[in-house]
């Protein structure tokens, strides 16, 4: 359990680092962006909003460490400040409204894409040298396709030309959100195209890394021994090769997840999907700094949490991490 404890400590530190970055970025960016913003906005928005901005960005005379302390205490109270674009709605309220959409869309599609990708990667590794190798260049291409471009193409073909799916939004505009079938079915229907986009754009990466890892593992003695034992192919492949080859995929989860999250955010923008990515896009366009920062923070924390989950899974997969002492 020492392994897990060390990991938890690392993530706590990373979370702290993300909080601190969030605090420092607006204060240390060259060109004093906040002062410029205040200048630009003065007279155009509510004076109360101006005060709120000035306060949350340290346009006060308080020294940095006092500001930092204030920042941490208000964070601890769940206070992320007030949005400028939607003044005076608290940032936390907007963030909490956007989060379920993203977790639903990106969470589910990431899991599906990981499962499809690793499964296919194992199969391609086993059949290496056969005709399935010709799939590799296509997968490499798919892996390099930008998410948002994939979304544009799919919209063009499946929505505009064929009319199978709606072009944007998470549900039929005008519906009142609630746990009724009409709303849920509308959410599912609107979710299909964004989900297909994210899966298509991300699964090839898992395939390629899993294939390479499995090919490497297939040369190990334990796989040869499993084969010599007369075990059926499937057993050799799953219990011996894949079971070992998946370990680096799980430890490398952080790196892959970053790319998926980034790409999914752009996908949300294209579909006007009311998740975290789309909201962040809006916040940047409105120069809604408090909202921008609140969203950055929540995305970072969610990714850190996902990494922690991956590490817990890793402990189950690799007995060596369970060693005492």
């Amino acid at each position, binding site marked *: 359990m020492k392994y897990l404890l060390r990991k938890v400590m690392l*993530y706590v*530190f*990373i979370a702290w680092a*993300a909080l601190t970055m969030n605090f420092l*970025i607006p204060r240390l960016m*060259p060109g004093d*962006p906040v002062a410029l913003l205040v200048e630009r906005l003065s007279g155009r928005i509510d004076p109360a909003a101006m005060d709120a901005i000035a306060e949350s960005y340290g346009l006060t005379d308080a020294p940095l460490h006092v500001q930092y302390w204030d920042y941490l205490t208000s964070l601890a109270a769940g206070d992320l400040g007030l949005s400028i674009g939607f003044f005076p709605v608290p940032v936390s309220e907007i963030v909490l409204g956007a989060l379920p959409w993203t977790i639903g869309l990106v969470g589910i599609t990431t899991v599906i894409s990981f499962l499809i990708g690793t499964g296919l990667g194992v199969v391609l590794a086993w059949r*290496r*040298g*056969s005709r399935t190798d010709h799939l*590799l260049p296509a997968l*490499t*291409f798919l*892996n*390099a*396709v*930008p998410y948002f*471009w994939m979304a544009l*193409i799919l919209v*063009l073909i499946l929505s*505009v*030309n064929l009319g199978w799916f709606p*072009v944007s939004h998470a549900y039929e505009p005008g519906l009142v959100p609630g746990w009724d079938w009409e709303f849920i079915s509308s959410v599912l229907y609107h979710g299909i195209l964004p989900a297909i986009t994210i899966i298509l754009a991300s699964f090839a990466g898992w395939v390629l890394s899993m294939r*390479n890892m499995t*090919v*490497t593992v*297939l*040369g190990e*003695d*334990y796989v*040869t*021994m*499993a084969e*010599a*034992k*007369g075990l059926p192919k499937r*057993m050799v492949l799953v219990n011996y090769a894949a*079971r*070992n080859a998946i370990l680096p995929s799980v430890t490398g989860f952080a790196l892959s*997840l*970053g*790319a998926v*999250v*980034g*790409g999914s955010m*752009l996908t949300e923008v294209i579909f006007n999907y009311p998740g975290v990515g789309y909201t*962040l896009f809006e916040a*940047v*366009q409105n*120069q809604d*700094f408090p909202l*921008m920062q609140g*969203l*950055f923070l929540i*995305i970072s924390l969610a*990714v*850190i949490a996902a*990494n922690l989950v991956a590490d817990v899974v890793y402990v189950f997969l690799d*007995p060596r991490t369970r*060693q005492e002492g």
Partner: protein
Amino acid sequence: MNLSRLVPASGKVRAGLIIAIFFVLLAAFGPLLTSYSPQASGTELLQPPSGTHWLGTTQTGQDVFAQFVYGARVSLGVGLVAGIISQIVSVLVGVIGGYFRGLSDDLLYILTAVFLVVPGMPLLIVLTGYLPSRGMVSVAFVIAITSWAGSARVLRAQTMSLRRREFVEAARATGESRTRIVFSEIMPNALPLIASGFLFSVIGAVLAEAGLSFLGLGSLTTTSWGSMLYFAQSAQAFLYGAWWWFVPPGLAIAVLGAGLALINFGIDEYSNPRLRTGKSRGRATRTSGPHAAALSTAGAAAAASGVDAPGTAPVLHEDGVGEVAGTEPSEGAAAAAQLRPIDVAGEPIIEVRNLKVDYPGIDRVVHAVDDVSITLHRGEILGLAGESGSGKSTLTNAITRLLRNPAQVTGGSITYHRTRARPGGSRGTDPGSAESIDLLGLSTEELRGYRWDEIAIVFQSAMNALNAVTSVGAQFDDVLRVHRPTMPAREREALARTMLEKVGIDSDRVSSYPHELSGGMKQRVAIAIALVLEPDVIIMDEPTTALDLLIQREVLDQVMALRDEYGFAIIFTTHDLSLLLEVSDSIAVMQRGRLVEYGPALEVYAEPRHPYTQALLASLADMGALV
């Protein structure tokens, strides 16, 4: 200088390089091909591709082709600049951390972890959101800041492993300065990783720039592939079906990314040779076509003769040995093979006749096993000696059908004589009746039934042969589940426990994982697993080489005791001839794929006939290893 040597052999790398060069040329010279300015609007609005506008026009009448080629400059430029900056940071952080260790490494490791976990795109968006003026250089710089961590981690691991290698140790011992070691010893060896990290950074940066510009966060006064997509999206080009506007930039990004990734495949294959060995094992155990048909007839004939004359030791007349393989130089093979009849009580169980295994190379074919015939009898211990590369492993792998491509059996036969009915097996014949099996002709399914039930293997290093992620018990259990499908779970576990005790290991270790066992214990577990189906033959591939001397002796004694109890035959491979002389009934010595001496152990010891064996024994005597 030979130019053809500059062209990489791998088709993937070649395709990747062509793509990369194409885009570089496009960025450099593309703008010369068009007379339009990328920003200038015209009167022809939203026109599809035509002779005057090769890629059509935008909503404001701008020429898409002009935008595309000028955009290539910006996108590639940002990719290169960001890739270079990011890779410099990765190398500094990774190599310094990995080489100098200590506190600086700890700090750099944590810093890397922070930038690895905190998602890049949101950070990038926030950072550029605050940038007062967004020139392409500052965008490239910000992209570099958010993207160095992955490559730094890989380089750190590589540096840590390099610093333990002999040549680095040697450089340190001769008192070279640390900077010099880092630059002249570590960096050149980490070069493939640095190159591949750089290519990934470039792909990442091109994608990131496209993403940012697409969100309107790049420099919108500069035309890049990303900003083209931004304007296409905000003009809702896809609703008008204006595919010519947004298809080219996205397609270019994807093709460029794929091209760089293909080059990376080549780099991966260069540093990890296993990815290079094209084909999987198990399919081409034998050449197909008419030749294979001839082989199975030969096998059947050998099998038939085995049935006809059970019990008589086959007479060895090896007239094939003297003939020189056409493609291989014959020096050193002048001395004739020295073969003596084997006088062992048991019936033959495995007969290898004139076996040939080839490795087709680029220039020439290597005969890894060249016309070898040996016979293993029931209960016999056959010692197979020879240095590495002599073909002894290829021979045993041919017997167990574990040859890897490109190895090919090109001649001869291997016959297995099964005499007793197996418990639980579906293919039980009546006890006592003989059955000869052409091993090379078995189908995959038949082969599975024969494996482990008839022939089990103990590998050289149990450390690598046991599956690290499942328990010892599970590794007994899967064999039993497959080969004894009717055995209830409780019996299977009881059997695993019994087998562990037989090799002197506490039966509670059944729930242990391999990493919880010592090296000697792991090898015993491997032996116990080999015995669980009570096979007639066990192939031991240098089973004690990885163990220290004392443990070696214990394990060996255990094997001998178990042999007396179960009566299995052993093919024991090792380069340690003194060990073989002690345990074997008969000895086969191989050199360069050929059997050079074969006979009863005592006779070979007392009177070695082949010069190679004589030299080996003489050197052993010199070392005092023989008494």
